[in-house]
């Protein structure tokens, strides 16, 4: 095979770093516009924390989109359910939540988060089997079914917990800020950043270092060929769907603590942001989702500070700008 001689130069894989530089450039661009360094640092920290929480909620959805081409408009239900389940743990242990010890606080927070993930994941199993399985490949029906499912979930939460907003106070040791010079960074935001980063690293390790991850990446790109190699992608999808639902539940707990309140329609505004993140990141791309979430949060925070009147449309403008630059998102994984 002479034309493929071993002397051919090895093609260097192209590293597409432009999307990674985008949030960095945006942050640097904001320094002179915001003026005060301490305000800029506070806003940047807030953006990163908010971005991490949105990433946690959106990561499962992007894989579901990419892997099975399923439009799940009911993803917000997992967020709300996760938050409500956490209140079940917080309420009887209110004294531990208000204790001054970090370890006692974590002894409530960790089981609450795990239980929320378990319940949201289990709900994901039911939703996939009951609502999504009958409408694979039918986008319009998927939208109708999952939107209907979201309404049913919200009304069920109203019926069980009532229409009032439920307070969800931050554990005492997570209140307050770290003071660095004249900059104050809220402790909870630092925790949110760390958890978001840990989730991102864990997903990347699974996707890049395990055979399961190989299958998911291959399935996002060409699920038909994965099946032709002998793998049951439906089972894989169910696993990804449940994991995505569980992560949405975790995101719900974190968001509820961030806002210090829970209500049944808490995910309505978030769902718009999550869809924007998934679209601008590129369907099925975890890296794109991560950068997209940070960008969306930055635009919301910087935009809200500089031009409050544009806050409502700023993320739509961001999406339009990114899609004009890269019509299939920051990192195109699928051909859709």
């Amino acid at each position, binding site marked *: 095979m002479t034309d493929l001689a071993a002397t051919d130069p090895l093609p260097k894989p192209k590293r597409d770093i432009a999307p990674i530089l985008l949030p960095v450039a945006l942050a640097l661009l904001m320094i002179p516009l915001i003026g005060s360094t301490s305000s800029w640092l506070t806003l940047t920290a807030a953006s990163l924390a908010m971005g991490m929480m949105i990433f946690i909620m959106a990561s499962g959805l992007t894989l579901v989109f990419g892997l099975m081409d399923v439009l799940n408009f009911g993803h917000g239900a997992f967020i709300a359910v996760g938050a409500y389940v956490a209140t079940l743990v917080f309420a009887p242990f209110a004294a531990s939540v208000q204790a001054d010890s970090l370890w006692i606080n974590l002894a409530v927070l960790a089981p609450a988060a795990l239980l929320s993930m378990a319940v949201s994941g289990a709900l994901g199993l039911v939703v996939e089997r009951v609502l999504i399985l009958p409408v694979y490949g039918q986008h319009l029906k998927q939208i109708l079914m999952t939107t209907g499912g979201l309404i049913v979930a919200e009304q069920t939460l109203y019926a069980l917990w009532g229409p009032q907003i439920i307070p969800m106070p931050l554990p005492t040791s997570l209140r307050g800020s770290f003071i660095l010079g004249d900059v104050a960074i809220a402790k909870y935001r630092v925790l949110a950043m760390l958890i978001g980063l840990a989730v991102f690293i864990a997903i990347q390790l699974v996707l890049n270092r395990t055979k399961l991850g*190989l299958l998911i990446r291959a399935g996002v790109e060409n699920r038909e060929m994965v099946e032709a*190699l002998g*793998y049951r992608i439906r089972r894989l999808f169910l696993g990804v769907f449940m994991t995505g639902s569980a992560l949405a539940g975790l995101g719900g707990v974190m968001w509820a603590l961030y806002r210090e309140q829970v209500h049944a329609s808490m995910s309505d505004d978030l769902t718009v942001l999550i869809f924007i993140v998934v679209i601008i990141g590129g369907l099925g791309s975890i890296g794109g989702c991560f950068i997209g979430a940070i960008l969306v949060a930055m635009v919301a925070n910087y935009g809200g500070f500089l031009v409050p009147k544009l806050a409502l449309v700023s993320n739509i403008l961001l999406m339009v700008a990114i899609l004009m630059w890269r019509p299939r998102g920051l990192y195109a994984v699928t051909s859709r």
Partner: protein
Amino acid sequence: MTDLLKLSGVHTHIGRYHILQGIDLAVPEGQVTMLLGRNGAGKTTTLRTIMGLWQASSGEISLAGERIESRATPDIARLGVGYVPESMAVFSDLTVKENLVLAARDAAMDDKQLEWIFGFFPALRRFWLSRAGSLSGGQKQMLSIARAIIEPRKLLLIDEPTKGLAPAIIVALIECLKEIKRKGATILLVEQNFFAARELGDNVLVMDNGTIVHRGEMAALAADVPLQERLLGLSLEAHQ
């Protein structure tokens, strides 16, 4: 010679289109059966229907005597059917190695088999850790075929492997497929390239409008230009 694969009265509908209109064919074990026909005759649909990627609306498909027309694609693959689609469908985000790891399924890759594959496709060794998306068209085709043969398969379904490739790469591919044939593989091969068809085929099936309109020995069709023109609209030589 027993028939490894048999299709009887297979119909396939895609949406409102009736593509396969009663296919009857047999693929003898250990032989290469060419599936020829004009564009749109239903060749790719036949392979996809066998693979379960499109469900047959009626008819019987059996592999080694076992009915498979109602089985899901992964089950058919696990019965020992390898599939090389026309689009090659390599996973471009994965490395060459990762593509082959997935193809080997539950088993570890057999080093001897891998060396044998590298003998034909040295580029795969060289680009072992490169992303498949960075390979040339010919190299992707090699990877696609390597993926189908990394494990022993009872039957290989290969769809136009030479399409769009440079002549030198076509020659190498033909050599590889000949070697696979010599090892006793059973292959159903869709091919438009006359040279490849003549070199590889033991038997030939010609399709038109979703039905088999001719079956016989490849050598006989290769020698009969008027028959080629009647069945295919032009001679096989003109298909190159």
